[in-house]
């Protein structure tokens, strides 16, 4: 019996039981569509995280002192670091504190960041209105503030915040600028900030200890060297082996990529489980089919069908069921992916996901079809023929 003959036979058997075939395929359809759509979602997450990290500035190096190792940095250490590490072209000290900002009757929980004018360029941020901190603000100890988009929108809905006075934990600041939005990833919202001169932040936070220093390497190529140099000078100065966590943009990116790749794999895996469940559904229905068609199997054997012919007939039937489900699932999955891509603004249909899902569905049909088909092929011709 040829494959074409087998396919024709299987098609007829499935067409004779459309409702059942359709419901059985549903398991595979959902599985395949889920694999494709979730992989797209994972890839969309990857690309949006990557692009938002890249938006933070291309040669950014972040230095976080390890307090448990007794390392405490002060604002003047940022100037010192710039002098002793030739690979960096600029740096900015950071003092961060959780605060409540209020304007008139509206209050808003946000993060206060005290820094220097250099931070704007280092982080690659852009202003939406007004100006950023300048050297005069620091020198004259001015109480000025630059608001992130989230803060601006919540404290001044539909109004111009420039020139207004916001109260941050009781200290008043005049708003001189508003930052453009950069979006955020993993809950860290770079738009929910108030940036003030570092000296002013010290009053609010009540300490001059730095949360960290942000530095800018002279080039992307030199960034790893800058990381090594910063690590070395800090370790030397504090006579320890882990004075600070020094991480370059590249490292953050590769860490995040690993995380999101794992996420994508996990999502695909979860969807894969539903494919497996669909396969069990196929096995179940094929077992039912075989027992319902016992007489037909007996007749075919009486007509000279070998075990092999019966085995392949039912195997082709389950594979066709699964592959047809897979094909419909691909169409549904691509439609879902396009919808997700539209909603998330990133993603796109992954060809490898489509092929993987289709291949896996065929495999599922064959693997879960083997047992019922083997049962059919092993039937005794006499018992099958006189089965009632």
């Amino acid at each position: 019996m040829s494959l074409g003959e087998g396919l024709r036979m299987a098609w007829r058997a499935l067409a004779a039981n459309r409702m059942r075939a359709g419901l059985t395929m549903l398991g595979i359809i959902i599985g395949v569509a889920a694999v494709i759509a979730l992989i797209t979602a994972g890839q969309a997450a990857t690309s949006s995280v990557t692009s938002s990290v890249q938006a933070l500035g291309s040669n950014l190096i972040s230095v976080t002192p390890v307090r448990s190792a007794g390392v405490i940095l002060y604002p003047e250490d940022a100037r010192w670091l710039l002098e002793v590490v030739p690979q960096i072209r600029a740096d900015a000290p950071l003092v961060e504190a959780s605060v409540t900002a209020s304007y008139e009757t509206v209050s808003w929980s946000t993060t206060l960041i005290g820094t220097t004018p250099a931070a704007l360029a280092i982080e690659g941020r852009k202003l939406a209105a007004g100006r950023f901190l300048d050297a005069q603000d620091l020198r004259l100890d001015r109480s000025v503030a630059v608001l992130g988009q989230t803060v601006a929108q919540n404290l001044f809905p539909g109004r111009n915040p420039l020139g207004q006075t916001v109260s941050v934990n009781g200290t008043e600041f005049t708003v001189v600028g508003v930052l453009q939005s950069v979006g955020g990833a993993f809950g860290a919202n770079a738009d929910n900030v108030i940036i003030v001169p570092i000296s002013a932040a010290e009053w609010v936070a009540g300490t001059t200890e730095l949360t960290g220093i942000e530095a800018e390497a002279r080039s992307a190529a030199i960034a790893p060297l800058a990381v090594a140099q910063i690590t070395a000078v800090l370790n030397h100065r504090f006579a320890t082996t882990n004075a600070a966590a020094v991480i370059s943009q590249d490292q953050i990116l590769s860490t995040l990529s690993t995380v999101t790749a794992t996420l994508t794999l996990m999502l695909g895996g979860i969807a894969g489980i539903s494919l497996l469940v669909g396969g069990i559904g196929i096995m179940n229905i094929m077992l039912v089919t075989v027992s319902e068609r016992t007489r037909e199997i007996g007749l075919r054997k009486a007509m000279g069908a070998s075990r092999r012919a019966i085995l392949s007939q039912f195997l082709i039937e389950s594979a066709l069921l699964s592959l047809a489900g897979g094909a419909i699932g691909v169409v549904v999955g691509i439609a879902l992916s396009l919808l997700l891509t539209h909603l998330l603004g990133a993603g796109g249909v992954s060809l490898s996901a489509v092929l993987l899902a289709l291949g896996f569905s065929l495999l599922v049909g064959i693997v879960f079809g083997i047992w019922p088909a083997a049962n059919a092929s092993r039937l005794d011709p006499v018992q099958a023929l006189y089965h009632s």
Partner: protein
Amino acid sequence: MTDVVRVEDLRRTFRTGAIEVQAVRGVSFAVTEGAMVAIMGPSGSGKTTLMNMLGCLDRPTGGHYFLGGEDVARKGDDALARIRNRRIGFIFQSYNLLPALNALENVELPLVYRGLAAGERHLLAAQALSEVGLGRLTSFRPYELSGGQQQRVAIARALAGTPDLLLADEPTGNLDSASGEEVLDLFLELHRGGRTLIIVTHDEQVALHCERIIRLRDGEVLLDQPVDARQRRTKGDLGSRAVAP
């Protein structure tokens, strides 16, 4: 005349746990080419078991079965499947047509397992259908045909592969007397055409169409004798009563 079928001391014992049933206990006979033989017996006489063995659906537990001179009693499953496919044509009481296939496709079934190409299959199947007088009903599904027509499709299916032996199991059992006569007429015609036929039945009137009757009882041959020429039915004539109970 050569023997198409020759069985020697054929036995079949069924074992279910500790219980042993000897369904066929040492049956011997031969059927020559072109013969038309009836195997008769009441239920429990072993005639169905014997027929299953003659049709290579079942293997004897003892004795020999020569089909066209070759002992097939100890053949494996695949060899038996091949023999059923090429050398035996089955006709069942309940026709056993596949409802999803039309008449032509049903007749093609054994040819599919013979590996013939579609064109050749169509040709042979159409010929067989014409031979049973259904040349014009090739595209009808079984449920669109009368019982007699369905049985004729089944006969065409048995003929299509030009087997050595036609094996019919109560072929008129499900038919009214008129359709039964048609089927028996067809058998007589095939017999005149030189086909070898074995009909298993418990109906005396059906058996009287054959040249010879082998009577079984309790798994053994009770009587094996030719049908008296004066009693022999040479045309489908089952009397006025229905054939099957």
